[in-house]
C-alpha cells in the first residue's frame, strides 16, 4: 500500500518523464536491500537446517535402536525370571534402566532439535513472504516505469501533431475510411464469388438439359426458317 501511495503522489506531482524517479530512490533501495537480506538469511537458514535435520534423523535412529534394546533386554529379563535366576534378572533390569535413561536424554535432545527445525522453517517462510511482498512492491514501480517508457514516445507525437486540431477525430475518420474500403472489398469479393458460383450453376443446368436452349445448331436454325416460309 505504501508504495502505491508514493506512486500516486509522484505521478500526480508530474513525475511522468522517463528516467524520473517514480518513488523515492531510497525506498526502492530499502526494498531491494530487504529482499537481498531475506535471501541471504534464507540461504544461511537452509544450510544450518540441513545440519540440524541430519542430527535429528541420527538421534531418532539412535532412540529407535535403544528402544529396541530395551524390548530385547525386557524379554531376556523375563526369561531369566522364568528360569528362577533373579540375580541375572536384576542385572538385566539395571542395564534396562541405564538404556532407558540414555533414551530419555536423547529424546529430550531430539525434541529440542525438532523445535529448532520448526522454528527455522517458520523463519524461512516469513523471509519468503518478505521477498514476495517486496517483489510485488518493486513490480508496481517497474510497471509504472515501463508505462512511462511506453507513453513517452507518443507524448512526443502528440506534441508534434497537437498543432492540428481534431487529431483524434481525423485519425478516427481515416480508420473508418479504411474499414469501409475493407468492407467494400469484402463485398466485392462476395459478389465475385456469387457470380462465379452462378456461372457454375448455369453450366450444371445446361449439362442437365434444363433451362437454356441446348439445340442451337444449324438444324434448329433450318427448322425455324422452314416454319417461317410455311413449309
Amino acid at each position, binding site marked *: 500500500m505504501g508504495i502505491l501511495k508514493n506512486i500516486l503522489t509522484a505521478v500526480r506531482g508530474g513525475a511522468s518523464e522517463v528516467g524520473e524517479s517514480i518513488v523515492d530512490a531510497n525506498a526502492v533501495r530499502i526494498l531491494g536491500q530487504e529482499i537481498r537480506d531475506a535471501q541471504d538469511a534464507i540461504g544461511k537458514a537452509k544450510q544450518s537446517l540441513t545440519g540440524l535435520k541430519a542430527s535429528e534423523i541420527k538421534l531418532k535412529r539412535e532412540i529407535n535402536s535403544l528402544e529396541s534394546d530395551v524390548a530385547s533386554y525386557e524379554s531376556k529379563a523375563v526369561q531369566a525370571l522364568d528360569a528362577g535366576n533373579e540375580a541375572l534378572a536384576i542385572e538385566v533390569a539395571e542395564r534396562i534402566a541405564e538404556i532407558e535413561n540414555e533414551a530419555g536424554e536423547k529424546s529430550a535432545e531430539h525434541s529440542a532439535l525438532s523445535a529448532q527445525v520448526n522454528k527455522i522453517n517458520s523463519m524461512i517462510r516469513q523471509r519468503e513472504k518478505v521477498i514476495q511482498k517486496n517483489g510485488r512492491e518493486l513490480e508496481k514501480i517497474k510497471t509504472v516505469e515501463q508505462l512511462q517508457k*511506453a507513453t513517452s*514516445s507518443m507524448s512526443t507525437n502528440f506534441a508534434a501533431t497537437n498543432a492540428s486540431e481534431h487529431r483524434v477525430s481525423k485519425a478516427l475518420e481515416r480508420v473508418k475510411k479504411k474499414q469501409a474500403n475493407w468492407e467494400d472489398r469484402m463485398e466485392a469479393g462476395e459478389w465475385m464469388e456469387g457470380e462465379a458460383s452462378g456461372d457454375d450453376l448455369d453450366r450444371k443446368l445446361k449439362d442437365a438439359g434444363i433451362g437454356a436452349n441446348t439445340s442451337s445448331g444449324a438444324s434448329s436454325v433450318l427448322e425455324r426458317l422452314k416454319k417461317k416460309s410455311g413449309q
Partner: protein
Amino acid sequence: MSLNELAFKLNAHLTAEDTRFDAVLAESGVLEVICSNNEEFPINIVKTDTQLLAITPLFDVNEVKPDKVNELNEELLFISPAIPLSAIGRQGNSYILFGAMALDTLFENIVHELEVQAENTVDVLQVIEPLLL
C-alpha cells in the same frame, strides 16, 4: 519470449480475421505494433519481470474540451468495465488503453489481445469523441 522474438513472430502472422501486424522494437526497448485493423493508434508493448503490458496511447488531456474533463473521466470509468480485455488509465497527461498479460502467455493469446485492443481503441474513441477538441 523476448520482445524481439515477439516482433519477429507478429510480423510473420496473419490472424483469422485477416489482421496483420507491423512490429518494430525501438531503441528504447518498447515494441511498437501497428495492427492493420487500426493503423492510426499503435500499441506499445513493454515487459516487466512478471508481465507484458500492451499500451495504446489515446489522447492528451490537452486534447479534451477544457470544461469536459470531469465528464470524460466519468464516462471512461463507466465504460471501462464493458471493454473486453482492456482497461483505461492515465499516464502523466496521456490517457491510455492497456492490457496486461503474464509473461508465459501463449503467442495466439497475445495476438488476440492486440487485435481486440486495436478494435477497443476505435470503440472507446468513438464514444468520447464529442468531448475532445
